[in-house]
């Protein structure tokens, strides 16, 4: 065998990467690639184009694009309706924040501690649900109950300051500290942008993999899937746990961005519902749906707020009413979500699924 030179190793790596990219994006139409590329470029240079307020709005958009995709793994791919996803974000936020506030542990290390907890929580819910045949709407109610349980529990947990809330030290930093996630909005923006992009790539990879096929089969017809040898329990558990861990990272981000956590807010069912609005409005089971949904929803909500403020109204709850109306309209008129309809319109249909 010929000796491995640096160039041949590099060529080999490039070849592997190219093959991977081709397999993941090979069936994406050129038009879609252009769209995707443009979006990415715009997002990358956004901090130079817009002011801090709009940047914060974009951060919220990307946050929901991130959590939306994580939830989409469960619902859109594996077909399990969870309405208690806030529990994972809450756990992630609280654990990482408590470790930082009490012991100065950096959030990235804190996240490593969060992973097994989130996975275990997801595994518990999944195990209870799937072993005991709790499905459909009952499963949704079970997830709500767990989140509520966590909310009340943390409300009484003195280690994290119970209902008075956990606050992160906000010292005056002269520079961005990525390791401790202390800094200006631009730093947070790139963190969440990277995270959202990574999840997007991950979802794409998952969908094209063996796991993705099995998930789709289970979603379509679980009994038929089992008849061709798919251990549906295992795959559903995997979906729940992966979704849980990813969502928990969102919680870590949330904690360090907003610097305070209240059980009443963090585990509230409104958080769970906010997480699902993006994917539902955008389109469950699609790759772009959650992202589009996040943009549309948050964008319009901010526009609404701005309009109301300009007209002199201060209506707390107006945004939620708006969310409710959007959800209602989508469920009634565009049950598959906005993205499939839009995609057909501009000719970038998302593959044959």
């Amino acid at each position, binding site marked *: 065998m010929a000796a491995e030179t640096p160039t041949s190793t590099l060529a080999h790596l490039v070849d592997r990467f190219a093959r991977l990219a081709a*397999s993941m994006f090979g069936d994406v139409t050129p038009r879609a690639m252009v769209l995707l590329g443009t979006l990415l470029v715009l997002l990358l240079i956004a901090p130079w184009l817009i002011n801090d307020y709009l940047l914060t709005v974009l951060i919220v958009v990307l946050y929901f694009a991130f959590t939306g995709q994580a939830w989409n793994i469960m619902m859109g791919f594996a077909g399990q309706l969870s309405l208690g996803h806030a529990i994972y974000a809450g756990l992630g936020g609280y654990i990482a924040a408590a470790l930082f506030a009490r012991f100065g542990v950096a959030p990235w290390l804190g996240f490593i501690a969060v992973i097994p907890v989130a996975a275990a929580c997801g595994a518990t819910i999944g195990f209870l649900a799937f072993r005991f045949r709790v499905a459909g709407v009952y499963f949704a109610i079970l997830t709500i109950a767990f989140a509520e349980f966590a909310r009340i529990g943390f409300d009484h947990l003195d280690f994290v300051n119970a209902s008075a809330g956990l606050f992160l030290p906000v010292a005056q930093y002269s520079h961005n500290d990525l390791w401790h996630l202390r800094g200006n909005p631009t730093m947070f923006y790139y963190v969440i942008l990277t995270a959202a992009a990574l999840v997007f790539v991950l979802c794409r990879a998952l969908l*094209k*993999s*063996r796991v993705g*096929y*099995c998930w*789709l*089969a289970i979603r*379509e*017809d679980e*009994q*038929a*899937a*089992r*008849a*061709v*040898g*798919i*251990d*549906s329990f295992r795959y559903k558990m995997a979906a729940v746990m992966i979704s849980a861990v990813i969502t928990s990272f969102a919680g870590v981000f949330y904690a360090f961005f907003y610097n305070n956590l209240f059980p009443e807010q963090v585990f509230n069912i409104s958080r769970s519902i906010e997480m699902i609005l993006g994917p539902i409005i955008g389109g469950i089971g699609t790759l772009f749906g959650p992202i589009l949904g996040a943009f549309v929803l948050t964008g319009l909500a901010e526009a609404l707020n701005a309009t109301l403020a300009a007209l002199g109204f201060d209506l707390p709850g107006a945004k939620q009413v708006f969310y409710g109306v959007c959800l209602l309209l989508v469920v009634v008129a565009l049950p598959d979500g906005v993205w499939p309809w839009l995609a057909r319109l501009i000719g970038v249909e998302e593959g*044959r*699924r």
Partner: protein
Amino acid sequence: MNALLSLQGVSKRFRGLVAVDAVSFDVAAKELFAIIGPNGAGKTTLFNMIAGAIPPDEGSISFAGEPIGSLPPDAICRRGIGRTFQIVRPFPALTVEDNVIVGALLHSRDVGNARASARELLRRLDLFDQRNRIAATLTLPDRKRLEVARALATEPKLLLLDEVMAGLRPTESDRMVAILRTLNRDSGLTIVLIEHVMRAVMALASNVLVLDHGIAIAQGKPEAIVRDPAVVKSYLGAEPV
């Protein structure tokens, strides 16, 4: 005798109704075995027990010498038993090719290999040209062939076909018969089929079991079965087949 599939005294009750009553039979390897009988005779229930969808109340089911009566459906498939459903159940939103890939993933290392196997099977079952169509848009005969392809993708040693000819025109069912015969002859695939279409049963089966109200009333070669008075009385009627 070394039967591939063996049922001994298998029974199933549904809240007082006896669906299957102490049925016993053996299926030898590479055999083409048919189960016939009037509607409600318990044939699909029998299949569901073999395939692990429901547990038998009594009796034992063994496959390749191992008991399988208490295994779940996915474990049974992994042991080497594939099945189709009486009412076709392809994965509706997936393409034809993706449907078969799902089955092929059981024995393939990765999606690429699975896709190759899937395409091979689609060619054999005459569905290759439609591989990119969404399963829900297929005609019934095509969906039936798709379900067979998907089951075959799991590389079964035994295939359970539940009324796979139902709803097919004679030309289509002849085509299906030819495919099944080829599979049996070339790959040594053992096939157990529930059938009402006697034309197909006569053309395919080497051994027939007749079920009526959950009881096995006759078993034997097809020519003998069609002349059996009990079978004629309960199911076939006096017209020559």
